[in-house]
């Protein structure tokens, strides 16, 4: 088998079946967009707040330095006032520099920034000191550009810095067309940009964001791994699984679930109400509303935690259904196909209940089923017939026991034919049979079934080419007139059967015979 994929066989009309969709994609829709949104919502406001504060502070300082420097140059030149103003600008630069001296997550970059800043300051100061104020502008420019190139351009702050640099160039060009004092402004702007990048506030915010993102990634990976394992486990599990939430909506299911209930993969989707699944199964005739008693149906349609039931499907399968609570509300429902076990159980039980020769139930099973019939309040009344074959001994003696068996089988068949499908037929042993007829309200109702039996059984039976004829005597007891207990009814029917033996009609009622006895009349 390759890759766990669903084997594709051509459909009868030549089309190929739709390829099975990736289960993971269906079952565990990984909502990255949602996760991302949550992540942004959690981290972005704090980050933006911090960065904005830093940008404002740095911008104010740069502006202050620039104004001081430019006005100093223009108004006072290298006078003491001009120098004082430039000193203010230097102080601003120093503040910015101090701000960015903090360690960062990326040491290499910071060393570069620090070195570049120092180089720029040196490039501005040393020429001015050594060569009566004339600065070496190309060297400084190169240093600043190198620094800017070092900054990864994907950060929005780099853009800010670039813009600050360009603004500084512009102001400088307006203030000092000769371009002799350009260096200071450039350095100042670059330093501001670095300061913003490396400010403690921004670093903390960035780091927090990074850590949060890392955590999310780690969690996602872990989840993916778990999901993959779970999916693989579910796909290879013999048990079917369905998980529903506290609102009884589908959370997830295993592919086996679709197989067990013959559902179309497109039918199932996350969030579908559980009731729509049971409705679909009823519609498909799998649940067999008729066959289920009310309480079982309720248990199927309203699942509760801890509930366990054996669900008979109309196609003959039995499904063991277990419902367990799901952490956080809802249920985890497992479905196990126990048809084989159930069948063998039933077979075993049936065999224990059956009479080996005739295939009808034996005395114990008959009594048990009669009791359950009697306890069913929907029954208007029940007739218990006790049947004893006439002349059966003669058949046995003259034709042998094998022939007797043939006769018993034939009689059983005829009883089945004479009675309704839901009538109970049993064999008490020997040539004694017993039957229970539900929904018999009065003696009047039982006349025709009894006469049917008499007619059917009296027809000749073919045994090894010979025709033998047996008769039957039937004792009839009615519930509730003659009793409400199984044994009691059997006893009454048995007594009536003995009366029937001497009655030309071939049948006798328990109650009439009772009326004929003086004792019973006295009691009556």
């Amino acid at each position, binding site marked *: 088998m390759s890759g766990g994929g669903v084997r594709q066989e051509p459909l009868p009309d030549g089309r190929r079946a739709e390829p099975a969709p990736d289960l993971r994609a269906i079952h565990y829709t990984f909502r990255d967009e949602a996760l991302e949104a949550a992540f942004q919502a959690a981290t972005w406001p704090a980050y933006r707040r911090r960065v904005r504060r830093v940008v404002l502070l740095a911008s104010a300082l740069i502006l202050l330095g620039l104004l001081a420097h430019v006005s100093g140059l223009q108004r006072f030149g290298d006078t003491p006032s001009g120098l004082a103003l430039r000193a203010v600008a230097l102080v601003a630069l120093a503040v910015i520099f101090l701000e960015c001296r903090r360690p960062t997550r990326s040491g290499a970059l910071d060393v570069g920034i620090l070195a570049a800043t120092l180089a720029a300051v040196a490039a501005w100061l040393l020429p001015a000191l050594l060569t009566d104020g004339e600065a070496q502008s190309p060297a400084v420019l190169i240093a600043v550009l190198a620094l800017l190139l070092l900054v990864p351009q994907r950060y929005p702050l780099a853009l800010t810095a670039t813009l600050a640099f360009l603004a500084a160039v512009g102001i400088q060009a307006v203030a000092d067309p000769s371009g002799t004092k350009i260096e200071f402004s450039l350095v100042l702007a670059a330093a501001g940009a670095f300061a913003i990048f490396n400010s403690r506030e921004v670093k903390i915010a960035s780091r927090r964001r990074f850590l949060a993102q890392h955590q999310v990634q780690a969690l996602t990976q872990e989840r993916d791994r778990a999901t993959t394992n779970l999916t693989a486990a579910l796909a290879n599990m013999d048990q079917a699984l369905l998980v529903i939430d506290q609102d009884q909506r589908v959370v997830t299911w295993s592919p086996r679930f679709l197989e067990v209930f013959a559902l179309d993969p497109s039918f199932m989707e996350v969030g579908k109400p559980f009731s729509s699944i049971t409705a679909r199964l009823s519609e498909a005739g799998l649940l067999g509303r008729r066959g289920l008693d009310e309480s079982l149906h309720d248990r199927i349609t309203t699942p509760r935690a801890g509930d366990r039931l054996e669900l008979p499907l109309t196609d003959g399968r039995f499904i063991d259904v277990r419902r367990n609570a799901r952490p956080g509300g809802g249920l985890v429902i497992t479905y196990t196909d126990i048809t084989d076990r159930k069948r063998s159980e039933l077979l075993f039980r049936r065999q224990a209940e059956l009479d080996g020769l005739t295939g009808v139930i034996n005395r114990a099973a008959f009594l048990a089923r009669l009791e359950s019939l009697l306890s069913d309040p929907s029954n208007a009344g029940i007739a218990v017939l006790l049947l004893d074959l006439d002349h059966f001994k003669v058949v046995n003696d003259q034709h042998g026991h094998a022939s007797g068996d043939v006769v018993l089988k034939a009689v059983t068949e005829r009883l089945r034919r004479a009675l309704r499908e839901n009538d109970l037929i049993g064999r008490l042993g020997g040539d004694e049979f017993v039957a229970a007829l539900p929904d018999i309200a*009065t*003696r*009047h109702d039982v*006349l*025709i079934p009894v*006469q*049917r039996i*008499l*007619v*059917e059984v009296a*027809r000749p039976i073919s045994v090894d080419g010979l025709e033998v004829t047996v008769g039957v005597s039937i004792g009839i007891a009615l519930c509730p007139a003659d009793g409400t207990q199984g044994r009691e009814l059997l006893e009454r029917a048995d007594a009536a059967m003995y009366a029937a033996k001497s009655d*030309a*009609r071939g049948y006798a009622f328990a109650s009439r015979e009772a009326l004929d006895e003086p004792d019973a009349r006295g009691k009556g």
Partner: protein
Amino acid sequence: MQHQFPHAMLPVALHDERARQDFVRSYKVDVLTRLGPGNREVFDRRAKPSYQRKTGQPPRSRREIATAMQGDAFWQMWSSLNRSGQEMMWEALTEPAFRERPRLVAQAQRLRRKRKSFGSLQISGDPVPRYIAAVDIHNQPGGYGLVLGQDDVYAGALYDLSAYHYSVGGLGPLGSDPGDSTVAFLREHHRRFAPRRILDLGASIGASTLPFADAFPKARIDAIDVSEGMMRYADARAKSLGKTIHFSQQNAERTNLSSGSFDLIVSHLFFHETSAAAVRNVMKECHRLLAPGGLMIHSDVPESNQFHPDPYDQWWRDWTTHFNAEPFRSTLRDTSLSKVAVAAGFAPRNVRELKIPSAAAVGVYKKTHGYGAEWHLVVATK
């Protein structure tokens, strides 16, 4: 009391069985004629005033009377006694009929063999229609469609016994009073009428078919019924009485007989055991089967509401619908058969409904008691 005529197909009751039958018959007469009128008193003195107190007005329709009476203890008791009488009757009739069944089956086979010249018998083996199969009409065990075995005549034998005991002898020794009465009506009102082909619908055991054989000896008489057991029994019974009738098992709603082939079509005690839809179909089929100028006569119990305007009488007659498994009887009483006949194609001026005296009343045989003093006819000419 006059006895049922012991023709060769009648189950013979043993001494004890006969005693039981006699008891049940007397019991039924007593419950009906001596206790039954008590209900009227109970209604007038107890149920009606109580209903009036509760609702502010006396019960006016038979449904309101049913509401007024349903909880009354006397009525419930009487109703139970009446129902038990019916069940006891069937048990008392089933015993000899079932005991005699093998003999009757053999007898019918013998008659069919020996008396080939007396009419014919065709059995289709079709099941009876649902409206017959779904209910044991007036609680006859197994219903009209009952077939217990090969060549069975059991349903017919039971019916024959019950026709006598149920009517308490009112249908005459051969149960032929409805037919006798129709014949008497024809003799009096259609003196020149000499049908050559006669058809009897829903003939059951052919009890009312036989008088036509005597009255019109030159005519060919066909009789049909949906029940296999009835037709087989009717054939043997007619043969045993020396009458020539052609019986065939089929549904009168759609026969296989050819159109316009009958001069006289009759039925007796048929419609009250037939669903309303089937009655309409039967009328249409009659119209199809009748030759121009032919006569159709349906005779049934005279209990149509047009004869009984008193709602108490109407309610009283509902008993058998509710408690004696005759589901179509109340509906029939509400139905105008003239209208059904007209709807089936008969010209309104050719349709009439009337009550005729029963043959017993005009002295064909000595009347005993029970009902049967009158019959309700719907007569139509094509």
